[in-house]
């Protein structure tokens, strides 16, 4: 690899580190598309750092490739906030909330739908979370497919969520002022990693969460592709103990 390619590759890599997402109109991205050496260079740097370069329809993204990334993300920041046996369930709950949010906004067939502009309200998300936890809580005792470990976690998370009031304080309260020991306040906490990376608009006055285009691109790239789906399926089934009680 020559010096020029190396320099272009590192420039792009660092620009991505700084910006996280770059549009195709960016000159550095142009180099990437034209020059295979630049592509290899960027990939090598990303691989070494446990990162992944993804090419969307309009943007190029740099994201953590899994849990072994050398870099902190807004998500790992959240995780480190909830370490230790007692706090871990908060992190699990946050994961459930993020997943349900993505489930609610994920669109079929890449079609633009109302939700993209309107977003999901905190209340809709809250009721979906409650519904899901109820379902799991009831099912985990009778459904043999649930793993033992999952059952134990659900038994901890279910009361955690249900013992919280919907929100704390009077009606005028801004969500950001709510402490996390209530449902809406914790939703706000849980989606913060998405907000910190500019993937959503957390509209605290209207209690709405509006996904941005960059988030849709990532969902597309991560969960809509055959190869990625296979990978995720393998991850899920790795060392699986479904139903082993």
């Amino acid at each position, binding site marked *: 690899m020559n*010096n020029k390619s190396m320099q272009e590759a590192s420039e792009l890599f660092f620009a991505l580190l700084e910006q996280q997402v770059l549009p195709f109109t960016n000159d550095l991205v142009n180099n990437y598309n034209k020059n295979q050496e630049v592509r290899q260079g960027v990939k090598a740097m990303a691989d070494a750092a446990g990162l992944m370069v993804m090419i969307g329809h309009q943007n190029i993204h740099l994201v953590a490739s899994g849990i072994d990334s050398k870099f902190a993300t807004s998500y790992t920041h959240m995780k480190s906030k909830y370490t230790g046996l007692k706090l871990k369930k908060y992190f699990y709950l946050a994961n459930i909330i993020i997943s349900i949010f993505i489930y609610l906004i994920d669109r079929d067939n890449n079609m633009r739908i109302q939700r993209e502009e309107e977003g999901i309200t905190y209340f809709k998300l809250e009721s979906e979370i409650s519904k899901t936890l109820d379902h799991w809580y009831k099912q985990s005792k009778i459904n043999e497919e649930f793993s033992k470990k999952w059952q134990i976690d659900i038994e901890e998370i279910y009361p955690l969520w249900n013992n919280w009031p919907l929100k704390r304080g009077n009606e005028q309260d801004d969500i950001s002022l709510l402490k996390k020991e209530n449902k809406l306040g914790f939703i706000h906490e849980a989606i913060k990693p998405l907000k910190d990376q500019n993937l959503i608009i957390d509209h605290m006055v209207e209690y709405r969460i509006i996904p941005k285009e960059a988030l849709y691109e990532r969902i597309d790239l991560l969960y809509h592709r055959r190869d990625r789906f296979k990978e995720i399926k393998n991850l*899920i089934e790795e060392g699986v103990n479904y139903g082993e009680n």
Partner: protein
Amino acid sequence: MSISKGVKTMDVYNGLFERLKKIKSISALGTGRQVGSLAPHSQSIALQLLLYVMKHEMLENDQRSKEDLINYTKEILTRMGLKSDEEETTALVESVIHYGAYERGESFSFELYNEKTGQLEDFSFRYLVTDKEASQLEKGGRSIYRLTDLSKEIIFMTREILDEYGFSVEQFYVSQLIKNGNFTDARGAVDNLIMKVKDLIKDEEVFYENIIRNPRNIFLEHRRLNSKIIKQQFEDETEVFEKMFKWKTLLLKSESDEKKKAGEEIFEKLEYARVLHDVLAEKVIENMELKIRIRSQYPDLLWQQQNYSFKEHIWEGIIDQKGLDAMDTFEKILAPLFSPVIDFIYPLDWAWQSQQTQFKEEKSLEDLHFEIDEGYQVPPIDFELIKKLFQPIFKSLLYKGSFDFGSLDSLTIDEKNEWLSQRINIELLMMYAMTPIVLKKGEYSDLRLKLFNALLAEKPNLNQLIGRRIQAQLTGTPIQWEVLEISPYKLYLEEVADE
């Protein structure tokens, strides 16, 4: 006077009573009687009955009696998969014909606010009336029904939403009103025209975005017409605009001052509508060209692939149903949604530098013909400078076994400026911190090894470092220069057994 100013002066109250009538007639459809279990579907069935009558009227078919309608309702119910109860079915048909008990034969009647009189006024109407010519009542024939003007309007109103000729219809309507000098009604109609064309522009924009997201969306039922017909349609519409503008001088000459003013306002709005119409035409043609280009140049994008989604396959298919093996698995699924957060900040002038780069490129665009192949040349890396800057770092690794980023704070201003003189200096430093690297002798494309070998050539005693691994920890002191901040990284050496 500006064009937009004319658009803003739409009077909210103008025609309120008439509008209320339309709304009422739609909302009261299918509510003439209690229809029991059919209540949730009464409006849908009632509309289908109106369509049935219209179709038969157009074909001059007399099968439009109450019995015919009851029979057709049964067909509708079967089609919709609903249970049909004789009594309810009859009640539903009767509810379209009369308000309340059929025998009483009452019209629908409501009190609505009339903005002109400032009072509530009675509004009575029917959806169906007896078609006297067809019924032969004298001979004892049954009542054959036909649509009233109001129910025709309901059908037209709902039809227009589906109709891609909507713009033409609206435009035709405007032109008729203007031609007849009916400027009061024309004003509202032009407003509708503007709204319509804005909607259509929005449609095209959404369609474009959808294609960019997924090229297979070109198969969406967006515009069924082929490009030739659409082009023709736009030409026709443009012609109608031109025709209307030709009337302008003619019409306004003969009118009173007041009417002239109203007329001028309308033509101003019309001009705005025409500009929007041109925008629309451009977008439609662009999208059609995009479709053709994708089909001809990138057919591979259109191959049917199995679509996976988080919603269906990951959430509904797996997690929601049977959970995960353990909650920790969520992490593996969600972690890649997030980008790394860097913990150092570039000097400000580097941000400016990239701005300058852009300027340079823009300038070269003007002289495109002879600079196109050159492009903008990135300044070459000053490798000698890199060697000079990194030599102390390797020395520190060699003698102390570690190097603290914060120690660069003690450099002189000149030395700091050397560090900042090219981006690659700091980037290379960060690369050592980011990922571990084993120092090896030889030719490598990794810039870090390249540098090591270059230094090794000059300082042979660095060969003691060969086979050692450079690691980083956040246990040092941070770099805190005025223009540069880096987290407290500390490089240190690690033994590697197996190299």
